[in-house]
């Protein structure tokens, strides 16, 4: 899907197409101004006028549309529901509620960057959640052992995904869909379809405690995002991951063991899902067989929307984190403004389609280019 379109997209890196819709702010002014001398390729191909000076270019709308949209949303809700929205608690709640989604989404960036899908991670979250609760609540395991075992089990599930994709050779969408269904079954089997309660306070403190007024999962997210960012952007391994995702055959010919890369990323997303599952159980103080699947769409939305941010055309960590938080702020604001209960889902879906549509949809892009030409003849 979007993986194939990425090359296309990168060529248009500098068109400055607005990547998000509902700010009401004017899109970037015309880009058809004459190119600075020396920036145009002799061939003319791929050369685009650059108007933003180097230091400012990173802050362009096209790279940070989610932040601009976030600012727009902030202003909107500040005017609409000032007394409930403009409170510190609103934002600490958003952070702590979204930290777990963020952790899953950051994990999900890895296989996406390597060109593999994982549809099973949300079920893996549910599985990890019920597993840790089952060990602590039903069998009295020590907290640390239960946490380690649950994360290890989910990591193993990720490794199974990896083996199905690389050793057996099943398409990753299908393999992880199958594994996801099995995980859903296993979750209900372990729990009998019921909540598991009686989790110790020590366990709950993993997710409930706060530091400087911000709950611990936010710090976990920050730490994991830092590690993932370092691995993807600064370590040779990350370069190989992106190479495999960009062109698997070319990566293979450059001496990269592509199968190994895909296997590792799918295993790691399993670990992230397991950790998220543990945190969910600790946060709600119970093992609930139904907690996993709701993570599927927000995490996907975050990763895809994130790929239109910061490092456009690449699935990247900070873009994903920003996207998850901005979407959550929109949802929160709508809730506080008394929007009907179904509106947040609608908001997530529309935001994803519009944002990705503008940055990747071929026809939309042509339309925008035409608009710009109309506005600035010559």
């Amino acid at each position: 899907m979007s993986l194939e379109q990425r090359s296309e997209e990168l060529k248009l890196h500098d068109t400055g197409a607005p990547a998000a819709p509902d700010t009401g702010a004017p899109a970037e002014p015309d880009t058809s101004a004459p190119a600075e001398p020396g920036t145009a390729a002799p061939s003319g191909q791929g050369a685009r006028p650059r108007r933003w000076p180097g230091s400012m270019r990173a802050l362009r709308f096209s790279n940070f549309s989610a932040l601009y949209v976030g600012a727009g949303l902030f202003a909107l809700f500040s005017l609409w529901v000032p007394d409930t929205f403009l409170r510190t608690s609103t934002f600490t709640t958003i952070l702590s509620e979204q930290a777990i989604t963020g952790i899953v989404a950051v994990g999900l960036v890895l296989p996406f960057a390597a060109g593999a899908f994982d549809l099973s991670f949300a079920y893996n979250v549910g599985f990890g959640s019920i597993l840790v609760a089952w060990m602590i609540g039903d069998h009295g395991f020590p907290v640390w052992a239960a946490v380690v075992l649950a994360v290890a089990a989910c990591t193993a599930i990720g490794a199974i995904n990896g083996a199905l994709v690389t050793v057996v050779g099943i398409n990753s969408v299908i393999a992880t869909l199958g594994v996801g269904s099995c995980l859903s079954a296993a979750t209900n089997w372990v729990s009998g379809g019921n909540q598991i309660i009686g989790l110790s306070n020590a366990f709950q403190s993993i997710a409930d405690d706060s530091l400087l007024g911000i709950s611990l999962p936010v710090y976990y997210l920050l730490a994991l995002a830092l590690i993932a960012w370092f691995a993807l952007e600064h370590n040779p391994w990350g370069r190989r991951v992106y190479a495999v995702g960009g062109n698997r055959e070319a990566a293979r010919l450059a001496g990269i063991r592509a199968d190994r890369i895909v296997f590792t990323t799918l295993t790691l997303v399993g670990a992230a899902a397991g950790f998220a599952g543990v945190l969910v159980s600790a946060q709600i103080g119970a093992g609930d067989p139904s907690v996993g699947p709701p993570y599927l769409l927000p995490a996907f939305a975050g990763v895809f929307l994130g790929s239109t941010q910061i490092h456009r055309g690449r699935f990247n960590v900070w873009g994903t984190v920003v996207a998850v938080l901005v979407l959550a702020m929109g949802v929160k604001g709508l809730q506080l403004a008394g929007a009907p209960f179904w509106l947040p889902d609608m908001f997530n879906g529309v935001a994803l389609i519009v944002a990705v549509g503008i940055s990747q949809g071929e026809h939309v892009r042509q339309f925008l280019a035409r608009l710009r030409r109309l506005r600035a003849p010559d």
Partner: protein
Amino acid sequence: MRDCAEAPANSPPGEALLRLAGVSKSFGSQRALDEASLELHAGEVCALIGENGSGKSTLIKILSGFHRAEDGGQAWFRGDRVPLDDHSHQWRQHMRFVHQDLGLIPNMSVLDNLALTAGYQTGVGGRIRWRAEAARARRMLARVGLEGVDLSAPVQALAPVERTLVAIARAIVDWRDESGVLILDEPTTALSRPEVARLFSAIRELAARGTAVLFVSHRLEEALEIADRVVVLRDGRVVAARPLAGLDERSLLAMMVDASDPTPGRPAPASDRRPLLEVRGLSGRRTEGLSFTLHRGEILGFAGVSGSGREEIADLIFGSSRARCGEIVMDGKPTARPAPASSLARGIALVPADRVQRSVIPGFTVRESLTLANLAPLTKAGMIDRAAERRETLEWIGRVGLAPADPDRPVAALSGGNQQKSVLARCLRTSPRVLLLDEPVQGVDVAARRRILTLIKRCAAAGTAVLVCASDAHDLADLCDRVLVMRHGRAVAELTGTELRPRAILAAALASERHTHEIVSERQARALAQTEALP
């Protein structure tokens, strides 16, 4: 060109079904077709031959309407002047093409593949009338002599020649009589000898019923066997258009290759070069038991038409394609199953032929693409040193002459020649002892070609063993110390020193076995030049 128009005596009596004159086409500064003309007659098979880049494909693509000919091109169909550039004009309905890749859908049945063009016959409620469909399919297949084939079998389950015949049947599916033009582009590449014979009998059958067939092939012996007339293209010009009678492979070759062979033969390589890589009994999908030795500092070329095995040698050695059997010996250590990563570790690097599919990584910048194969020297404490990476990228950009010299430009946005330079730089950065190049200058502009060839020579001069597989005889003659010519999976000739000329390479690659030895010798080449000089 002109000798064709002014030589009606050579044409069979009667009016040409299709006639083209003054057809030209340039791509940039390159003249792909220069005032070409063509005459096709009903009931006749005409062979179109010429080496790579002589303008065959361009001519076919103008016929199919894919390319637009330049002003001045004229066409007549059944004696009436018709517009050459009007895609929707009636006369194009009579042009039917079967391309080398056939364009069938492999996992769909024979019947469905035929119906894709012809449409399904439906009954009440849009129900497909399968029985009527089957009857029609059989009728169509009978026209090309294909009988008893299982209509419900997926096309991929058929023998190669049966697939070709299905493709032909499909191309002419709606012809009521066989009075159109059928253009077969390299139809025999994937076929074995007996299969070729079966295809030829079908082609003859069609011609006998009034079809004008244009047969495009690399294989001269096949052109001689099937065609009544031949049109020879060289450098975009028609150098001969005449009946085949009285011609043989040698005279055809003489027409295809420029007599004034500009490339001087190279001095024979010094014999004291030490062997570096030895290939023993290598067999892949097309190659059969290939053995040779690659020496330090040598540039060894592999020539051959497509399908000869030439195109898979580099991949088999590198390990990106699996060999059926055979081993690669380097440093005295044999390997039966090489793999890309282990080959790179041993000092073997590959520049593959298909740039878009196999080299360019969409989304990567020049810097990321260039350093990909060897990041270890740039990594400190698990972190890629961006500044050092940038410095080194700029250095390589200068060394291979990449333009623009911008390390942060996406590789996908570079021109073909610059992409190729970046891939070459990626490989050279791994300091290979053996450099495998598959079509290193295909689809690159003239300046980039010169630059790349120079880089390769410099690399060999520094002691690297270079292996080049290329379809262009001129590239090989320019570059190599020694050329092995492949045919039907085997190396059939070895050319060095003064024998190493484009003409000799082509002769060995195109001619059938028995002529090779005579043709490649220098004396024969000179004799050929004289033959050609004669009117």
